């Protein structure tokens, strides 16, 4: 520690100076300190990349690149029958949005090779005599071989294929006399846009990332390089110092909320259905929660590396996986569903979905809100306690 003090002396002096030169009033001093920290953050372009580049890039990637659904999946066909029925069906596959017939194979022996090469996800197999059997016996068997090494894609490929074939059967059949016609309505998201799913998830995740990761690292850095000691001997009280360190992030994270909502609205046409005011207030609550979590992490980690790993492995990964953002929670083993209960993102994501997509009011989110408030209180009181112990 001793020699860090020497090398960091200049910077420390600046901090002390900047704190001491401002008026005697605590509030004034605190504001000056926050202002200094704020400038410190926004003057570094690398920090700005994280603060605004990540949200923007993620929204664009999720909006334009990633899709949970399948589109234009390449498939191969082994048609040993070569009759009108098989050709019609192949055409139907090719014409759908889901599939594109990219390879015609000459024998079933080639199936393994092409699936192994990864260039197609499915092979349709028509045995020889398929058409004749279809006409004469009224029933013909065809094979679907699906690569399920990616089970999600595989399952979609299989079920869409089966649906296409069922549809084909129906078209061919003389219209049966009795029929039930379902009228289907997609609620909340009539066009089944991807954005509806990822915008709330991203908002939850990004706020957690910026607030918890950035603050925990910032505070730990001060500790690691010894400048925290200087701050502690300054006229500012410890909690004020922490406040000064995290307040700029509150502001910047709020900027991110606005950025995400604006992009959702103007780029993807996804407006906030419910009360914008309520959504913003809930966001502030969640940001506060994430900041207090960041402070808590910084009190338990000695080095930036530790803070980083706790934030990323301990917080980010579970937040991505167990918040119901990408992976549906209700299908997870019970153990994980219980774990997810103590993760703040899980609750916030429900709030955002409700207000933003369903347009429901506070009546539908008060429970979740309460959970967030209680969590914040717990995190703050634990870190206050830890912080005091460290000082004594």
């Amino acid at each position, binding site marked *: 520690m001793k020699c860090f003090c020497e090398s960091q002396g200049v910077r420390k002096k600046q901090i002390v100076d900047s704190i001491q030169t401002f008026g005697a009033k605590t509030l004034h001093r605190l504001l000056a300190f926050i202002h200094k920290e704020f400038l410190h953050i926004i003057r570094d372009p*690398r920090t700005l990349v994280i603060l605004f580049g990540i949200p923007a890039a*993620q929204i664009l990637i*999720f909006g*334009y*690149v*990633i899709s*949970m*659904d*399948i589109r*234009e*999946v390449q498939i191969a066909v082994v048609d040993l029958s070569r009759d009108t*029925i098989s050709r019609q*069906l192949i055409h139907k596959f090719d014409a759908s949005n889901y599939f594109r017939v990219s390879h015609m194979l000459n024998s079933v022996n080639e199936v393994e090779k092409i*699936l192994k090469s*990864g260039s197609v996800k499915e092979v349709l197999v028509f045995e020889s005599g398929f058409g004749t059997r279809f006409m004469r016996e*009224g*029933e013909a*068997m065809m094979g679907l*071989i699906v*690569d*399920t*090494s*990616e*089970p*999600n894609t*595989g399952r*979609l490929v299989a*079920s869409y*294929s089966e649906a296409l074939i*069922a549809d*084909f*059967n129906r078209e*061919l*059949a*003389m219209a*049966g*006399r*009795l*029929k*039930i016609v*379902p*009228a*289907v*309505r997609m*609620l909340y*998201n009539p066009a*089944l846009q991807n954005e*509806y799913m990822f915008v709330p998830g991203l908002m939850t995740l990004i706020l957690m990332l910026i607030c918890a990761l950035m603050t925990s690292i*910032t505070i730990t850095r001060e500790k690691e390089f010894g400048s925290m000691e200087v701050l502690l001997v300054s006229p500012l009280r410890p909690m004020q110092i922490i406040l000064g360190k995290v307040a700029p992030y509150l502001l910047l994270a709020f900027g991110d909320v606005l950025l995400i909502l604006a992009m959702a609205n103007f780029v993807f046409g996804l407006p906030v259905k419910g009360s914008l005011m309520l959504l913003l207030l809930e966001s502030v609550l969640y940001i506060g929660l994430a900041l207090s979590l960041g402070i808590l992490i910084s009190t338990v980690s000695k080095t*930036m*590396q530790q803070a980083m*790993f706790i934030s990323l492995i301990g917080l980010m990964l579970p937040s991505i*996986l167990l918040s119901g953002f*990408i*992976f*549906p929670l209700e*299908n997870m083993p019970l153990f994980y569903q219980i774990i997810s209960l103590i993760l703040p993102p899980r609750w916030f994501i429900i709030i955002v*979905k*409700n207000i933003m997509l369903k347009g429901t009011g506070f009546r*539908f989110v008060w429970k979740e809100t309460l959970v967030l408030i209680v969590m914040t209180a717990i995190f703050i009181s634990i870190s206050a306690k830890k912080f005091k112990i460290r000082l004594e």
Partner: protein
Amino acid sequence: MPTLYYLLQKEFIQIRRNKFMARVIILVPIVQMLILVPAVTFDIKGIDLCVVDLDLSSTSRELVNALQGSQFFKVRRMTFSMQEAQNQMNRDEIDVILHIPTSFERNLMVNDAASLQLLINGINGALAQTTLVYFTGVITEFNRRIVMEHIVLKPVSASPQIVTRTRYWYNPELNYRIYMAPGILAILVTSIGFLLSGMNLVREKEIGTSEQINVTPIKKHEFILGKMIPFMVIGVVDLAFGLVLARLVYAMPFVGNLLLLVGFTLIYLLAVMGLGLFLSSFANTQQQYLFVCFFFMMIFILMSGIFTPAESMPAWAQQVNQLNPAAYFIRVVRMIVLKGSGISDVGWDMARLSLLAISTTVFASLKYKKTIS
């Protein structure tokens, strides 16, 4: 190169002595494999259905039974109020509302056609789409059955139909664990190669030791190799460790050639390390590097299609992925491990990834300066 020997000796002593680092290297694969892998599943165990049956006829009841009997739908609620059903949907307690209007059965018998309403929560588009596919399947089957049952007197020539036999290859049980395990391993290898190696270099800059190194006659490539090799070793060891865990815990098959996988992993590590070392020249503190690296890592991993179908990406994104090392790695790891793809299947990917690896390493060496600007 005796210099390299001394550098490697130093790096390994430092890594061994850093308790936290040692713990990370051993614990992270365990945690990821044991805790995260089972958590992630897209498996649809049941679609929660709320039935608003205003008809209460035998046909409507039969239809509900048909849905209940299918493996996908679970009838969670029965109510007579659409408002009530809608509220439940708002609270996320159900996914689908099936509304059967009054005189459903009468319409069907008299007019030969009856409508019913299906309301699906569309927020998760893919799930909604799948729900619809399943529902249509049940209705089609139900239609056929009632035609058979009710029109015995007017025999209709049975229309011909195609029967499918679907076979799932490589993962017949649609087991998500053996799909996720290689993906999670890929993230692990990426973090070691990209994040840790770059951090290590920037750390020397931040604490000042790089100055003492820069004033020695050490060659640039010696220094860079000295930084790369330890993390290559760690990366491969962690990969092997993870594979063994996946094997023991999830009975993940390993169909392919282990040597091919290790070779591919080394090329991948070279590519991401080159990139990491290149980026590290733009950062003066570990914090700055972490942020910049995290930004790229996130884009790489998301774009690689790790949890989402890569084939559905637009053409331009697939072109961009030609420059994304993670896209190659995640695809090829699964191909080798689960499908047993050989060198002839992954050869092209290997060649292109090697080109990427060479370029990033060359760039990193050129960019690395022994002077301070």
